[in-house]
C-alpha cells in the first residue's frame, strides 16, 4: 500500500500509535510507553544518586576528620552515630551501601533503565518496545528492589557490613558480620533487581533486532544504540550469575547451607569468582552506554561524522567480549593460583586496546571539526579526558606486580571513580542535557549547565585525583580511621583536602538538580531539532507523543552525516531526509501488533 499525502492518522493501523486519552495513572504511573518508563527510571535513579551521594559525604567526613563529631550526626540513631561520632560498624555500612546504591540503583538504571528505554525505539524508528508490559514490570521491579535495599537501613542491625562486593564468609556468617536482616534484604533486593534487568535487557535486544525502521541497517544504527544493544546482551548474561550467587548467599544466611563457609566445607573464593564473573561485565554495563551516547554527542558537537564508525562498533564488541574473561583481575591477591593471575593480567591489559581505539576515534572526530560547545559537548569532552585517566590508571593494577602495593587501597577507589564518575556520570550529564528537550519539550539553562560543568570538573578532579596519591602511600580501602597507622598519618592533610573538595563537589550538584527541575517549568521551549542532529528522534515533536510516529520514517543513511557535501548549506543531514538521489528502502514486514 502506498501511503498518500492526505492519509489521516488513523489510516495506519498502528495499535500502539494512537490512543484515547488515558487517565493520569495509566499515562504516568502504570505506563507502558517506553518514554514515560524512561522518565520514571530517571527520577527514581536520580533519587538514589542523591542517597548514594549523602552516604559518600558521611564517608568523607569520617575519613577527613576521624575524631570529630559529624554535623547533624545527632539526627541518626545511636546504633549508627554515638555522640556525633560515626561508629565503625556504621562506617562499614556507609561504604557498603554507597557502592550498592551507586552501582545498582543510580548509574546502572540511569544508563540502561533511562536511556535504553528512552532512546532505543526513538533512534531505531520503533513505535515502542517489543514488550511494553514487560517493560513496565521491569521498572516496577527495579523500584521494588530499590525500596527493599533502602528498607535495610531501618531493620535491626542495619544494612550490610561487608562492602558492596559482599565478600564471604563475612557476608555469609551473621555471627561474624553482625548483620542479620540487612543481609537478607540485600540478597532479595539484588534478585529482584536482576529480574528487572533481565526483563529490560530482553526487551532491548528484541526491539533492536525486530523493530528497526525501514532502511535502518545494523551499520546505520547510532553508536548509542549499538552500545545499548551490547550492554543488554551483557546484562542478560551477567545478572543471572549474580542472582544465583545472591540466592546461595541468602541460603547460607537463612537456611544454614554452607556454600561459602570453609569451616563447613564451603569455598570462600567461590563467591568472588561468581561475583566478579558478573561484576566485571557489570563494569562495562556501566560504561558502554556512556561511550555510545558520548559518541553521538561528540559527532554532533564536532559537526563531523564519527571517526572510524566500524572500528567503534568492533571496539564495543571487543570490550564486551574481553569483559567476560578478565574477572580474575579482582582476585590477584586472593590466593588464586598465580598462573591464573598471569592469564587474567594479559586479558586485562588487552582491554586497554579497544578502549584506546575509542579515545583516539573521539579525538579523530574532533580533529578538523567545527566544534560547538554546547553543554552536552562540554560534558562529553570532559568524559573523554576523565575516562582516559580512569582507563590509564587501570593499567597499574592490571600489571600484577604493581597491583601488589596498590590492590585494595585508595588507588583503586580513585580508579573506579574516574571511570564511574568521570566517565559514566559526565556522560550522563551530557545525555540528560542533550535529550532533555526530547523528554520534556523544554531546554535546560545553557548558562547554568556550563557553570555546573566547570565547577564539577574542577572539584571532581580535586576530590578524586589525590586519592591516587594516598593510595600509593598505602591507605587501605574501607578503613574507618587512617590516623591509627603511623605511615598514613602524614597523609591526613590530603585526606582533609579531599573531604573539602568532595563537599564542594556534592554542593555543586544541586546546581544541576535546580537546573533540571527549574527548566521543567521555566525552561525555554525547545525547537524541534535543537542540536541540529541527524537522529530519527528529532523528526518528532518535543516531547514525542505516545507511540512515537504515525508512520515510521524511512532511513536513508547513517547517523553521522554532519557537514556532508550533499547537505548543501546546512551542516547536518538527518537519517530521515530523502535527497533526490535516495531510493526508498524496501519496507520491512510489519511485525504483528504494530
Amino acid at each position, binding site marked *: 500500500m502506498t501511503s498518500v499525502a492526505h492519509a489521516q492518522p488513523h489510516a495506519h493501523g498502528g495499535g500502539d500509535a494512537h490512543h484515547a486519552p488515558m487517565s493520569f495513572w495509566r499515562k504516568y504511573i502504570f505506563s507502558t510507553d517506553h518514554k514515560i518508563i524512561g522518565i520514571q527510571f530517571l527520577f527514581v535513579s536520580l533519587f538514589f544518586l542523591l542517597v548514594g551521594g549523602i552516604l559518600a559525604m558521611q564517608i568523607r567526613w569520617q575519613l577527613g576528620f576521624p575524631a570529630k563529631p559529624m554535623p547533624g550526626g545527632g539526627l541518626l540513631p545511636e546504633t549508627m552515630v554515638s555522640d556525633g561520632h560515626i561508629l565503625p560498624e556504621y562506617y562499614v555500612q556507609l561504604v557498603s551501601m554507597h557502592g550498592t546504591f551507586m552501582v545498582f540503583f543510580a548509574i546502572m538504571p540511569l544508563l540502561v533503565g533511562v536511556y535504553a528505554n528512552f532512546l532505543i525505539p526513538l533512534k531505531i524508528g520503533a513505535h515502542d518496545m517489543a514488550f511494553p508490559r514487560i517493560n513496565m514490570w521491569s521498572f516496577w521491579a527495579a523500584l521494588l528492589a530499590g525500596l527493599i535495599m533502602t528498607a535495610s537501613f531501618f531493620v535491626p542491625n542495619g544494612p550490610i557490613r561487608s562492602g558492596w562486593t559482599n565478600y564471604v564468609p563475612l557476608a555469609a556468617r551473621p555471627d561474624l558480620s553482625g548483620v542479620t536482616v540487612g543481609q537478607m534484604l540485600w540478597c532479595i533486593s539484588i534478585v529482584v533487581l536482576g529480574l528487572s534487568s533481565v526483563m529490560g535487557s530482553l526487551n532491548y535486544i528484541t526491539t533492536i533486532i525486530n523493530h528497526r525502521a525501514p532502511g535502518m541497517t545494523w551499520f546505520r544504527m547510532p553508536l548509542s544504540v549499538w552500545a545499548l544493544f551490547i550492554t543488554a546482551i551483557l546484562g542478560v548474561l551477567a545478572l543471572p550469575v549474580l542472582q544465583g550467587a545472591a540466592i546461595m548467599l541468602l541460603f547460607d544466611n537463612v537456611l544454614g547451607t554452607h556454600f561459602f563457609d570453609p569451616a563447613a566445607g564451603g569455598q570462600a573464593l567461590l563467591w568472588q569468582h561468581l561475583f566478579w564473573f558478573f561484576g566485571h561485565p557489570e563494569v562495562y554495563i556501566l560504561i558502554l552506554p556512556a561511550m555510545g551516547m558520548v559518541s553521538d554527542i561528540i559527532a554532533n558537537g564536532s559537526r563531523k561524522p564519527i571517526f572510524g564508525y566500524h572500528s567503534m562498533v568492533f571496539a564495543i564488541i571487543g570490550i564486551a567480549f574481553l569483559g567476560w574473561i578478565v574477572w580474575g583481575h579482582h582476585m590477584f591477591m586472593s590466593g588464586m593460583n598465580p598462573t591464573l593471575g598471569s592469564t587474567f593480567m594479559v586479558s586485562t591489559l588487552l582491554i586497554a586496546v579497544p578502549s*584506546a581505539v575509542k579515545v583516539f576515534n573521539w579525538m579523530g572526530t574532533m580533529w578538523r571539526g567545527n*566544534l560547538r560547545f554546547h553543554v552536552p559537548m562540554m560534558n562529553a569532552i570532559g568524559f573523554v579526558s576523565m575516562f582516559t585517566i580512569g582507563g590509564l590508571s587501570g593499567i597499574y593494577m592490571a600489571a600484577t606486580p604493581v597491583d601488589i602495593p596498590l590492590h585494595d587501597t585508595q588507588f583503586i577507589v580513585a580508579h573506579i571513580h574516574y571511570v564511574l564518575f568521570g566517565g559514566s556520570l559526565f556522560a550522563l550529564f551530557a545525555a540528560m542535557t542533550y535529550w532533555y528537550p526530547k523528554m520534556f519539550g523544554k531546554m535546560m539553562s545553557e548558562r547554568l549547565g556550563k557553570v555546573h560543568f566547570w565547577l564539577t570538573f574542577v572539584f571532581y578532579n580535586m576530590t578524586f585525583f589525590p586519592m591516587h596519591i594516598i593510595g600509593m602511600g598505602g591507605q587501605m580501602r574501607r578503613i574507618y580511621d587512617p590516623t591509627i597507622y603511623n605511615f598514613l598519618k602524614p597523609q591526613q592533610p590530603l585526606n582533609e583536602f579531599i573531604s573539602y573538595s568532595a563537599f564542594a563537589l556534592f554542593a555543586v550538584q544541586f546546581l544541576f538538580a535546580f537546573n533540571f527541575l527549574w527548566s521543567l517549568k521555566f525552561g525555554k521551549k525547545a525547537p524541534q531539532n535543537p542540536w541540529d542532529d541527524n537522529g530519527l528522534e528529532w523528526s518528532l515533536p518535543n516531547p514525542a507523543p505516545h507511540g512515537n510516529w504515525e508512520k515510521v520514517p524511512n532511513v536513508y543513511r547513517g547517523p553521522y552525516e554532519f557537514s556532508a557535501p550533499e547537505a548543501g548549506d546546512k551542516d547536518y543531514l538527518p537519517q530521515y531526509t530523502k535527497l533526490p538521489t535516495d531510493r526508498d528502502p524496501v519496507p520491512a514486514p510489519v511485525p504483528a501488533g504494530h
Partner: protein
Amino acid sequence: MRWWLPDAGSTFAGPIDGLFTAILIITGIALVLVEVGLVTFVIRYRGRPGRKAFYTHGSTRAEVIWTAIPAVTMVALGLISNHYWVLIKDKKSVPPNAYRLGVHAKQFEWQVTYPGPDEKLGTSDDFTVRNQLHVIVNQPTAVELTSEDVIHSFFVPEWRLKQDAVPGMQITAWFEATKTGEFELGCAELCGMGHYRMRARVFVHTPDEYKAWVAQQAAGGTE
C-alpha cells in the same frame, strides 16, 4: 606528606617500583597525548561561522596504527610484569632457605607463630605473639597465612607485599626485608567493623637482635 610509594623495605620494592615508574612514563605519555590533543582541538577547531568541518569517515591507516601501538605496548608490559609476578607470587619461587613463620589472622588481630630456638615450625618450642611480627633483615622469610574466620589481607606497604588470608586455605607469602626498623602491618581486606584496627607492629631485626628477642620470648618474658 609523601607523594610517592613508601620507602623501599624489601627486595620486591626494586622491580615493583621500577615497573611502576615505567607504567607511569607510558601512561604519562598517553595522557599528555590525549589531554594536550583535546585542548589543542578544542582551541583550534572551535566553531566559527561560515566554516565547515572536514568531512571524513575515518582512516584505516590511523585505526591500524592506534590499534597496533597500544596492543604491542600492552603485550610487552604483560610479559615484563609476568616475569616479576612469577618471581614474587609463584609457589616455586619461595627460597628453600626461607625462615618460616605462621601468621594466623582472625577478627581482629594477627597471631604470629614463631618457630622458637629450634627454628622449626610445628614443634613444642613454638610460641605465638599477638600483633607483633619480628623478622630478620636480609633473610628470606616465608609466612604461612591462614585465617580463622573471614578473609583478611596481609599488607606491609614498605615491603610491597600483600596477600589475602583466606579461611580454609594456607597460602605462603615470602619476602626479604632489606631495612631494619619498625614498620606496620595492616589488614587490606574488609573483615568487619574492626577492620581498621587490625594492625600489628613489624620489627625488622639484625640476626643477633632477633636471637636475643627469641630467647627472651622463650623465657616467657614480654618486652
